[in-house]
């Protein structure tokens, strides 16, 4: 009984540590997870992930801004770095996969990095290609990684023009992923015009859009 209470407290503590941007707190709690033999998958999904989701909610409510989300994601990654090596392989294999990158001609990567954090928190395996990514690389990577979703980001009206070309390349890859786009000059209308599958106006909404795409996918 004590162990259960303790476990719940630790999970709650992990979540709080992410929300409160408490780097040392998450290190201490992750060590406790390992010391007490708490299931690592549960610690990630009900602790760290839950915390990042709450941080996202605070962002949506206008209480948190990008500085807070960056620090929350720093804490998330600190926790994941400690716990992930202890995940059992069978649980790793269940992960959905995403490839993400800022398209060629653009180096603005804050939004992309936060999308990556939100997907990582959501249990996805994220293959981050970085920024200023040559368009062919998205197709090559998709052929290798066979991701469920590819996220393309552009922050300028000129680099936005790379997105339809990247989408055409990805449509020729096998398997064809869902393509999610975002970034300041884009809108739902332009995303549709470029034949993307989804558009997210910010990092927090991106995971929801991706989950909806996968949910609505015909068998």
């Amino acid at each position, binding site marked *: 009984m004590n162990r259960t209470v303790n476990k719940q407290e630790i999970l709650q503590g992990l979540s709080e540590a992410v929300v409160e*941007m408490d780097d040392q707190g998450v290190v201490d709690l992750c060590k406790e997870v390992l010391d007490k033999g708490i299931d690592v998958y549960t610690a990630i999904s009900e602790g760290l992930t839950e915390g990042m989701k709450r941080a996202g909610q605070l962002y949506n409510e206008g209480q948190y*801004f*990008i*500085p*807070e989300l*960056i*620090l929350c994601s*720093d804490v998330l990654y600190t926790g994941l770095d400690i716990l992930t090596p202890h995940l059992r392989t069978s649980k790793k294999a269940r992960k959905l996969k995403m490839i993400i990158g800022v*398209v*060629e*001609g*653009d*180096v603005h990567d*804050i939004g992309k*990095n936060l999308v990556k954090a939100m997907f990582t928190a959501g249990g996805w395996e994220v293959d981050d290609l970085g920024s*200023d990514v040559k368009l062919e690389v998205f197709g090559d990577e998709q052929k290798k990684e066979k991701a469920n979703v590819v996220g393309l980001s552009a922050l*300028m*009206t*000129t*680099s*936005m*023009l*790379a997105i339809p070309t990247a989408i055409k390349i990805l449509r020729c890859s096998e398997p064809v992923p869902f393509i999610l786009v975002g970034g*300041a*000059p*884009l*809108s739902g209308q*332009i995303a549709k*015009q470029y034949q993307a599958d989804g558009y997210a106006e*910010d990092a927090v909404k991106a995971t929801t859009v991706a989950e909806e795409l996968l949910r609505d996918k015909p068998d």
Partner: protein
Amino acid sequence: MPLNQGRISSEQRLSLLLNRKPVDRVPFFSFAQGFSTLNTGYSIADYYYNPEKSFYALKATARQYNFADFSLFGYASFGAWEFGGEISWPEGAYSQAPAIKRFPVESEEDVLKLGLPELATAGFIPRFVRFAELHEDSSGYYTLGIEAPFVGAGNLCSVTRLCRWILKKPEIAHKLLQVVTDFKIELIRYLAERFGTEKMIPWVGDATASNVIISPQMFAEFAMPYTKRLHENILSLGYRHIIAHICGEQNRNYPYWAQIPMGDPGIISVSQEVDLEIAMEYFPNDIIMGNITPSIIQAGTAEQIYEEAKKCLEKGKRAKSGYMLAPGCELPAKAPPYNVWTIMRCIDDHGRYD
């Protein structure tokens, strides 16, 4: 259909507006940078790399489209190169502006030992000087993008690092902002001494201070005081006007921007995320400029662009201290020329004052 040039020249119209006199019709500030050099057979990189080509391209394109004769020179990432970082020129197929390859500030220690650059030789500054020299014997106003301290601080250390310091090391963020502000004040003094203050209107943009990135409280603490000090110094040097490009979604920052002196009158460049009426409310004594959505100019139909420009004109013409139609941010470098011409046609149809 040829465009109507109006009863007075573009230059006269702008001069009247800046002197708070009535004008015949709404001027158009093109915000055309790479668009102008592409339009005249050069590359986007030429706009930044070569002041002679840039000067020619801006003048020629303004004449062709009947834009306001008001040349803009600069880029948002200004500051990194000047403090010893590295930039790349926009030479790729999809590049729009110089990008930072290496930030000059990577640690708290770097901030503490940061000194001011040698103005005569640092980074892009010689190009500012050349661009200003070209205007000495030319008509028309010009504006150099010295940018706001907050975006400048992000350009030195990366926006991500600046965000971390705001929360974890605010004293380091303030120290960096002080140095960046000092640099910009020294730069504007240097330009004023060399070229006077009559024809140049300093451009102070701030995209990093958007409420998509920071809270209004963070703006009040980390952006507003430094931009205010910069503007006070600009005006004390004798510049009459400042263009404040309030870039991105900054609705909640407007009460703070309104506490910053802008000149007599200042020019408020309003991004498409902010209603022109909000800007008009906070800046009744300044010229309002904006705010056609750039991505619509790039990807929209001529009808959509015409409608958007018309809506802006209908609101903007009610601004008490004058109005300039303009894109909310840079005119897309590869915008279809017909779409740009459509904006000018809309001014012909709906931009006249009765």
